[in-house]
């Protein structure tokens, strides 16, 4: 509670503003150029290859979450896409009906029942919380790609991959974020809400709860009984 109040409002907003400035100056222009000046075919290949490289981390977390079916799917996808898919450049597994999914250690911690803690905006990395920040570090440490790069003196590979991922991710969300920025009354609050809702969705593997609070049709005076469920979604 104290920590939440401390890292809460002022620091988060300030870091958010700095990140936004950096984004406008560097990442966004690059992402726009990438989207507009390279063929869609090329972007799809890059996206597939980056997804494929994540397989070991996804598998690690599938297993830790006890999701054995998903773990098997991850292994099969990796084997197919790395071989027939030419080093992951083509997502053949999805065409064959084995769809991909993402996992990370932040989600694993959530599945284990560890609370997220206060919302924190990290410099450069953006929206997060203690649980997801720890998850990010663990995922980095267990990723065999990083171990390989470290052991063979190829740190540039880690940087290039991170940069490629940032550009790929930013390019896919250009439109959505532009719209959000344009129509929001409070962009910071929108992003905060969005981040937490997306994480809840990812943790539940896209199976939303039936208790999701929503407006009722012809709703009477605001009911206090609803507040309990809404607490879970309270984004402050």
């Amino acid at each position, binding site marked *: 509670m104290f920590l939440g109040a401390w890292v809460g409002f002022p620091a988060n907003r300030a870091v958010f503003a700095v990140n936004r400035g950096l984004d406008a100056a560097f990442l966004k222009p690059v992402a726009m150029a990438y989207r507009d000046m390279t063929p869609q075919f090329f972007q*799809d290949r890059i996206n597939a290859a980056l997804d494929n490289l994540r397989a070991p981390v996804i598998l690690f977390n599938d297993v830790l979450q006890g999701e054995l079916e998903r773990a098997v799917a991850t292994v099969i996808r990796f084997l197919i896409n790395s071989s027939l898919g030419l080093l992951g450049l083509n997502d053949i597994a999805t065409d064959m009906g084995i769809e991909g999914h993402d996992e990370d250690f932040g989600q694993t911690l959530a599945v284990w029942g560890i609370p997220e803690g206060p919302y924190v905006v990290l410099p450069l990395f953006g929206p997060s919380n203690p649980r997801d920040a720890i998850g990010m570090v663990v995922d980095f440490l267990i990723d065999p790609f990083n171990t390989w790069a470290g052991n063979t003196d190829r740190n540039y590979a880690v940087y290039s991959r991170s940069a490629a991922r940032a550009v790929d991710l930013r390019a*896919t969300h250009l*439109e959505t974020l532009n*719209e959000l920025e*344009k*129509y*929001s*009354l*409070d962009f*910071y*609050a*929108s992003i*905060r*809400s*969005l981040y937490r*809702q*997306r994480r*809840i*969705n*990812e943790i539940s593997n*896209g199976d*939303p709860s*039936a208790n*999701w*609070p*929503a*407006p*009722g*049709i*012809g*709703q009477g*005076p*605001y009911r206090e009984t609803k507040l309990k469920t809404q607490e879970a*979604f309270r*984004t402050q």
Partner: protein
Amino acid sequence: MLDHNRTQAALKGLVFIFVLILPLGLAPPSVAAETQEMAGSFIRSLADQAIKSLTQKDTPRDVKIKRFRTLFNDSFAVRSIGRFVLGRSWRKASKEEQTEYLKLFEDLMVVSYVDRFSRYAGDVLVITRTRAENPRNTTVFTKVKTSSTGKPAKVLWRVGSRGKIMKIVDVIVEGVSMSQTLRTEFSSIVRQKGGKVSGLIEELRKKTKSLKASGQ
């Protein structure tokens, strides 16, 4: 002998269960199934309407906005959503503030969702399943193939029903709820304005004005 009788009694009991209890158990789902089907076709027809009236490229934007306003008021529970989004502040607002807020809220929704709506409810909308959440709420799960990226987006439509009347109470795109996001945003603004709804109304007025002026 005694054992045999017991078995028979148990069998009779089982028959009793199958004949009398089971139909009772089955009855409610079939009502729910009907509501689910209605909710599904409600979303389908809404998508068809959206394609007809909003997706033509040569339609001027102000005409699109006008059409969307009608569509929005017909198919969304605008008042309920507006009230939900304002959360606890609703009761703190005066009657005049509530009226003005709802009017501005509708304005904001119409100008800010006209483009996004035609994208989420285009002809590429496929209903994957429906689920009854409670007697009054059904979720219609859809997959929408957006033009920009290859992967289809998961869009959930929360449909509230009262008798034959059906209205959308929330749209959830890739796990992000429209109502929930607006609620966080609005409450953040009310907090910044010292807990005053009038401060939010002022911001809403500014935002809708600038969005209308930008003409896009």
